């Protein structure tokens, strides 16, 4: 069995990605669950992942089982378990370098930039297990309000407000503290998404907004540059560039341009369907020893 240790049930993108991964592992016939410090489950997105308390998991895991984690701070404690470890790399902060150098840790990556980082910093090729968008985000023909721009104010609020000034007809709708279904509903009805978190590792919300049919205006990010293509499916650039582009948002001569970006964005989102990630997870699952795929307490062959 694989137990994925996460730090809390809070609203952080990496936690949702962990649950999605456990769901996919289960679907591929790998016994897996989430472990949180207090055994509480996240309730802000849809999943079927079983949840246990971390202490309970560490007490009950045994020969043949393994632990997965994505927060480098967990490395030392989990290493003491003596069990095989999987590091699900969801960011490329140098803090992860000691993890990458640990030969007892198998490294999994979700996007190309992380793959390249692991190769450079750890000296070995990780396994690509992908990342995907929850089905609820995909645009399903809802009427959109072109004047509504959603954004996540937790990072880059000032930039969002500055951008809004460049386009006075734009109505800023902050997304914070909402569950995934509500976030998706807001994005599916909005015309624009402002991705303002500078230095973002991947920027899953921007990708979700693309699937929801938003025109995305994004500051440059790291891993997310694999799906953000300036002038093709979104607008990417420094704040000045984004301001200039936003100033033309409602110019009649550019209407077809925005429509083109919107359609390309939806097409990009389709490349990150859960089914596409499932193919990668299946390939990873096929490499696991049979005893690691079994439920807890099952005889190990």
């Amino acid at each position, binding site marked *: 069995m694989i137990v994925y240790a996460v730090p809390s049930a809070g609203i952080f993108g990496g936690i949702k990605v962990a649950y999605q991964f456990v769901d996919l592992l289960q679907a591929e016939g790998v016994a897996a669950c989430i472990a949180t410090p207090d055994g509480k489950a996240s309730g802000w997105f849809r999943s079927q992942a079983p*949840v246990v308390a971390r202490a309970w998991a560490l007490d009950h895991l045994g020969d043949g089982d393994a632990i997965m984690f994505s927060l480098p701070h967990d490395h030392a404690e989990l290493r003491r378990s003596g069990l095989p470890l999987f590091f699900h790399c969801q960011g490329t902060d140098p803090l992860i370098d000691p993890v990458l150098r640990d030969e007892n840790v198998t490294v999994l990556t979700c996007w190309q930039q992380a793959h390249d980082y692991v190769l450079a910093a750890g000296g070995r090729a990780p396994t690509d297990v992908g990342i995907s968008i929850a089905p609820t985000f995909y645009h399903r023909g809802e009427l959109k309000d072109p004047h509504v721009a959603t954004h996540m104010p937790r990072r880059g609020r000032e930039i969002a407000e500055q951008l809004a000034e460049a386009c006075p007809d734009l109505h800023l709708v902050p997304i914070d503290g909402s569950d995934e279904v509500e976030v998706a509903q807001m994005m599916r009805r909005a015309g624009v998404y402002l991705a303002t978190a500078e230095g973002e590792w991947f920027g899953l919300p921007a990708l979700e907004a693309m699937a929801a049919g938003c025109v995305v205006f994004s500051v440059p990010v790291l891993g997310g540059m694999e799906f953000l293509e300036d002038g093709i499916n979104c607008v990417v650039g420094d704040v000045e560039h984004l301001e200039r582009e936003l100033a033309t948002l409602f110019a009649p001569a550019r209407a077809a341009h925005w429509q083109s970006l919107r359609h390309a964005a939806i097409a990009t989102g389709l490349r990150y369907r859960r089914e596409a990630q499932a193919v990668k997870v299946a390939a990873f699952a096929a490499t696991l020893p049979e005893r690691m795929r079994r439920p807890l307490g099952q005889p190990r062959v």
Partner: protein
Amino acid sequence: MSERIAIVIPSRGMNALLAVAIDHVQLALEQVADRASGTIIVCDNATDPPYVRADLPAIDVLLRYDEHRSFSEACNAGVAASACDLVLLLNNDVLLHRHALGEMLDLVHEPLMGIVGTRLLFPDGTIQHCGVVFGEHGPFHDRARRPTTIVPRAPRYLQCVTGAAQLIRRDVWEQLGGLCEDYPFGYEDADLCLRARQLGYRVACAQRVDSIHFESQTPGRVERDIPSRRVFLERWHGRWSIDAEELPYGA
């Protein structure tokens, strides 16, 4: 090799319905006779007057409680009285479709599978059970009271299925210690499924055919549901993942 299934039916009163339910079990067993054999165990949960063995000629074992016990106790006693590879918990007001057991047997042999349910309808043709899903406030029957035609016929993989018709691998049952007896009546099935999934087992619901479930026919059933829900929430609230795709109908 033929598998041995213990069909455990806890029952209180409802003699005529019980007899018809057993007839349906026999029909379902005949359909899988090439790969499974069944032992039918009825746990008479303080029926007054007690069931008479001669009135239930098709069953193999008749257990008797003189005082009303919980659903869990009755089921656990029934399973303990059997030697089997699989356990089918069945309510006395479920009329199993003759092909339901076959599909459940197919599913229970999928990798990681621990517990399998099946689609159940109310007599009016609407859905009673096609899988249990979880919202913020607790589990509920997905699409309850909606037409059976709106739900696809492919198996569904869920966190929980109803104990009204629940096929469980015996080794999983033993590993879990059977149903938790803290529940007066209700939610012990959800508890069992959540515990099984914590160990890495999967739970699925067969959808191909429609069986009938009258639901909550047993006298005193509803009154015991409230304290059972309390036990369940004290134990599990905040510990399930939310997988309800939308609000329950009528909410």
